[in-house]
């Protein structure tokens, strides 16, 4: 969230470089409220965020059965990284995050360009694109699980009409993860499109008018105006979908439970299974690792994107 706020805060600051020393205004603003004013928010923050974070750091160093706790140092981390399934699930997580992010950027942008053009029933079409976002992920997962059933599913039923023997979308170990990724793209595309529509609509009309006066073709308008000026939207979409992809769990769990075998396991589902098995310390260690991985991936990405949006 902080990354997004930075993206937004960074943009106006480029325009207002003439204003002297923003740091002083910030100091003045802080003194508006007495310090007790912050106590309720601070208390909530400490109880709901700070304490659990530090508690989880502690529990990740223990063997924890909910009934008693044994301190075992870094054994959980050693165990977590020596897990034979971990490497595969890690690769799956990366593949899933990359595939879904790229697809959402490309398709979301294409749809947004379409839906910002003069279309009949544009409002309706925009709403329809957004509908899958509103449906519960578990519901979507279970529905697609039924649709993709290799024998009774409607997808393979439709393929059979054309004489094609459809594969086991969710039961073939090579296809399962990609099938889930496709459904994830379908479900998450609405958000990406919405962000892009907002980005494109926010581009000042002056540019388009100037381009039209200069006689630019629509490809040139797209290439030189729409595409570069919706870069902040691209940044937001990438950040949102990479974070979502890295910690994706609910859709995968509803559709394959990481199966068949371990072929669609991601880090989050491995952690969940460890928690289910009662390895509370081990799964907490896994969550600490996931937290570090997501942070390590996101900081450079958001830095890069912020830099680009400042340049634009």
């Amino acid at each position: 969230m902080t990354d997004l706020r930075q993206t937004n805060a960074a943009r106006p600051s480029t325009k207002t470089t003439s204003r002297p020393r923003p740091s002083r205004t910030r100091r003045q603003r802080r003194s508006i409220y007495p310090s007790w004013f912050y106590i309720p928010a601070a208390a909530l923050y400490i109880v709901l965020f700070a304490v659990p974070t530090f508690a989880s750091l502690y529990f990740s160093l223990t063997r924890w059965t909910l009934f008693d706790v044994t301190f075992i140092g870094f054994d959980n981390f050693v165990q977590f990284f020596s897990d034979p399934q971990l490497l595969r699930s890690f690769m799956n997580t990366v593949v899933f995050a990359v595939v879904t992010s790229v697809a959402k950027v490309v398709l979301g942008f294409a749809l947004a360009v379409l839906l910002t053009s003069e279309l009949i029933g544009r409002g309706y079409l925009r709403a329809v694109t957004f509908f899958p976002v509103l449906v519960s992920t578990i519901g979507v997962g279970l529905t697609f699980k039924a649709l993709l059933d290799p024998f009774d599913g409607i997808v393979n039923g439709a393929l059979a009409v054309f004489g094609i023997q459809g594969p086991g979308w969710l039961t073939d170990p090579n296809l399962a993860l990609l099938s889930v990724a496709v459904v994830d793209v379908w479900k998450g595309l609405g958000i990406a499109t919405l962000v892009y529509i907002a980005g494109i609509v926010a581009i000042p009309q002056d540019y388009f008018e100037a381009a039209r006066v200069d006689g630019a073709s629509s490809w040139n308008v797209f290439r030189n105006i729409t595409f570069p000026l919706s870069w902040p939207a691209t940044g937001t979409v990438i950040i949102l979908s990479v974070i979502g992809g890295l910690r994706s769990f609910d859709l995968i769990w509803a559709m394959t439970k990481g199966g068949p075998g371990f072929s669609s396991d991601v880090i989050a589902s491995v952690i969940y299974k460890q928690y289910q098995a009662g390895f509370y310390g081990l799964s907490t260690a896994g969550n600490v690792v996931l937290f570090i991985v997501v942070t390590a991936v996101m900081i450079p990405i958001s830095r890069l994107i912020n830099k680009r949006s400042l340049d634009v």
Partner: protein
Amino acid sequence: MSSIFTTRRSMALIAGAALAAVTLAGCSTADGSSADGPVEISYLTTNGDDSIATGEALIAAFEKENPDVKVTLNTRPGGAEGDNLVKTQLSTGEMDDVFFYNTGSLFQALNPDSTLVDLSDSDWVSDVTDGFKEVVSTDGGTYGAPLGASYAGGIAYNKKVFADLGIEIPTDWNSLVAAAQKIKAAGVTPIEQTYGDTWTSQIFLLTDFGNVLKQDPKWAEDYTANKAKFSDEPALDGFTHLQQVYDEGLLNADFASATAADGTAALADGSAAMYPMLSSFVLSTLMQNSPDAVSNIGFFAMPAENASDTTLTVWEPSAVYIPKTTEGAELDAAKKFVAFVNSPEGCAVQVENVVPGGPFSTSACSVPGDTPALVADIQAYIDADKSAAALEFLSPVKGPNLENISIEVGSGISSAKDGAAAYDDDVKKQAQQLGLKGW
């Protein structure tokens, strides 16, 4: 300005007073009901149709006999999710007054000595079989009372298909494979597998355990002590057999997506000849979906390499427990309820609602006269002393990933040897979590 301020303050005062009054009223009703009204206790069971039906019927019969006690039925999910819920409820002190849970190693993981009420001085304990007592006791006491009958794991088969093709019940592994080939040649699915319900994939392995124990009576002990491994014979057989039935194409075409209900249906209508499964599951599904087929389904033990080693693997029933957080009048009522479950009246209710998948573990209950063929087959193994308890009752070590490892081996993703090695790694985590020696 000041008038607004005072109005607000007085509003706040009124609101505060109203709140206090409500709270006080709440307290007084709570006190009153425990003094003269009926004692209210709650009973937590799993959310399966059978256990809800049994729970409701038991409560109705119990309340009729004990009008001063009111029992509420709560449900929880089964499987690993349910295990977590029970552990969480126990550790936070939020557990229902009586709850239904597994016996054996899952029961041991509840830390019974500090969380459960010792029931060893109850009258019904003397009726319970020694085998059952072992799986609900620690050195500190006996904590559970059986609810439901024991059941077996093995192969449920369609008698008509076997008879039509002139196939005898196989007692060693090679004759099972030969029989399967013959069935396949006749155009019937020889062996049904249902990996759409992942838990069913473990059955091949778990039901082979009776055979392992017959070949090495100390195997479970050695396994707990980190001396015996699934990568070595005799336990490796379970994995190799699972791989073999896939490699030889003896499975149904939809094995990867079929559910256990699909599997039972295929067995019932004769499109599949054999289904490795738990007897209780097959029986209750048949009773619900195709009651006419019950008499046509028999049961035999998972064959070992040598016929002389073939032994039926048997599971003790689950039990009802009382947590330490239940006290006073509620505790007395809870104990009464547990005793009722194990009384002849309670047994009658149990039998009425669920057809037992095997013999009962208490002398207070008996399987009714018109025994299904499948239960009679199981009883024959027990009478002939060719049965053994499942591994989960003899060792607390069970890896959480057995389902998925079995699916990998059983659908050609990995070999039996790799699967067994992966499972040996998997159990290590569980053993360490339990703090066992030698790991």
